[in-house]
């Protein structure tokens, strides 16, 4: 029981961490690309690197970035729900 549970937890943790890191990097890149485009559309105000850096700082504090944490939360909630559904309902 303990061994099977630990095995599942470890595998799930590794997979979720890979997904979390991957999606974090991808999302930051998307944000960076959008900021560069926005900088050009706004008539190139000031230095482009500064503009992008400031935008990414805003992104770091945003809810959108914290939503990526759902990668860890959702599977655990789903498994808990299945356990309740199959065994206790």
């Amino acid at each position, binding site marked *: 029981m303990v061994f*099977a549970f630990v095995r599942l937890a470890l595998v799930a943790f590794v997979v979720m961490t890979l997904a979390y890191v991957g999606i974090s990097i991808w999302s930051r890149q998307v944000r960076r690309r959008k900021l560069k485009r926005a900088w050009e559309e706004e008539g190139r105000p000031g230095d482009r690197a500064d503009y992008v850096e400031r935008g990414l700082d805003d992104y770091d504090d945003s809810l959108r970035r914290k939503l990526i944490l759902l990668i860890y939360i959702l599977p655990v909630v789903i498994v808990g729900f299945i356990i309740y559904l199959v065994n206790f309902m």
Partner: protein
Amino acid sequence: MRYVKWALWAVFWLLIAAFFHYTLPQRDIVRITDTFERRVDFGENSIFWAKADTGNASGTVNRDVFFIQSIRENGRPMVYRNEDTGWGWPPYFKFDTNNLQTEAADLRSTSADPQWVAVTHYGWRNEFISIFPNAVGVRALDSPDVTLIPWFNIIILLIFAAICWAIRVRWIRFRERRIDPVMENVEDSWDDGRGRVSGWFASWRKKK
């Protein structure tokens, strides 16, 4: 070559279909005639049996397994095994095997006075290798004439189809952008080369 490609894809999709057909839950409308347990020595069919109940010693050669005997609506027999899936595959997280056996035993009925039951299960019944679907839940029905819509399976298969579609679209786009231009280049230079060679042959012929 084209037929080989088709055959490979057919085998691939057959395997996918078999995987889903085995793993996804299905509901049968049955009448439970009896429940029993029996010692099972697992042989070459062991992949179709679960591991020992969660918490019990694992790696034993044989153990007692619960079974649920039933008669389906169409009069044909169906026997389910009743085993924990625990934390393993498939991810049903079933730990209540003994409770389920109690419920199933409580719903036993005779053909004279049938009590219809919807049995949720996964897996296959195959007489030739002695495998049984694993019952996951039982629910008493008032009458056998109910339509059970497999919403869960519909959602899972739709998500799977969406993922396949997304991969396919991206692959086609990738091929159009990266591989097709290269192949055209190769073909162009091949045509050029052939022109030169046949030109050379032509000049050689003229000499003669």
